[in-house]
């Protein structure tokens, strides 16, 4: 099954990494320099959080509110890390590297292959994380440099790429009725809260649903 892991990891690396170009464009359009834009991809490396920084800065928000919005979105990477740690079992420098690439996609690929074999799941995590890191940073640079030439990302349909990518990652996790219930509940909650809260917070609020569902339901 290792070939499936490599194929999945590589296709998601290219597909999601390419969206780094859209981030590069959005970030420069929001008023960050090319260097700051590339620094976000290199150091922060969490798409939604990076977009949050650019979005808040672009809307005229303070550095503190940019950090808060970005941090709230990055909180989920901590949950992913807690889920990944028993699988990865890494220490020292490898844990630092693993931490940096603990994102939605690397976690999702690892979890998607976990039932087949733990070795495949680990391979999927590292391949996807490193692959996206490389493509995302390269694409960020290209996007930032070509910001004016590329224009509006929506015009290229890139606005639909990210939700589609998240749907593709969610899909294999919808096997049990409990996970379907959690997903539907999260969608409803995120949409209900969106008009009332700062962008990003409705997503974090979705954590409440697995907390309740996982606590109460017996498996």
């Amino acid at each position, binding site marked *: 099954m290792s070939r499936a892991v490599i194929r999945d990891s590589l296709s998601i690396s290219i597909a999601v990494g390419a969206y780094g170009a859209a981030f590069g464009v959005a970030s420069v359009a929001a008023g960050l320099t090319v260097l*700051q834009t590339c620094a976000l991809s290199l150091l922060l490396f969490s798409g939604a959080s990076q977009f949050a920084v650019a979005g808040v800065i672009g809307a005229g928000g303070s550095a503190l509110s940019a*950090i808060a919005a970005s941090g709230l979105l990055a909180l989920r990477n*901590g949950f992913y*890390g*807690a889920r990944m740690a028993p699988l990865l079992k890494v220490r020292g420098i490898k844990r630092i590297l693993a931490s940096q690439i603990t994102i939605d996609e690397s976690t999702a690929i690892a979890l998607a292959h976990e039932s087949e074999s733990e070795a495949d799941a680990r391979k999927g995590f590292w391949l996807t994380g490193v692959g996206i890191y490389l493509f995302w940073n390269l694409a960020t640079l290209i996007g930032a440099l070509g910001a004016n030439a590329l224009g509006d990302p929506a015009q290229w349909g*890139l606005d639909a790429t990210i939700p589609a990518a998240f749907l593709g990652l969610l899909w294999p996790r919808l096997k049990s009725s409990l*996970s379907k219930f959690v997903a539907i509940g*999260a969608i409803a909650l995120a949409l209900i809260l969106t008009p009332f809260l700062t*962008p990003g917070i409705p997503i974090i609020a979705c954590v409440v649903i697995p907390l309740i569902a996982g*606590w109460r339901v017996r498996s």
Partner: protein
Amino acid sequence: MWTAVIGASVLAFAFKYIGQSIPESVLANPRIARIADLIPTALLAGLVAVQTFADKTTLVIDQRLAGLAVAAIALYLRANFLVMLIAATATSALLHQI
């Protein structure tokens, strides 16, 4: 601006590293393990919803929903991940041109 860039980066790495460093025994509890397993499902579902319907704090229906519908059909037909993404992206791009 650099304050936001560095501050957000440090915070994100701190969350990632703390998450990786939580003692394994915390996850040994079946209830915690089940919750941790369901968290990505909830966040991914929330992300799908927000990234499809939200324009900042407004809910809108636009070409992204058509792209997502095509993605769902592609996934139902067991299409390759990349094929699914290209189909969704092309749908949105096409509708944007009309």
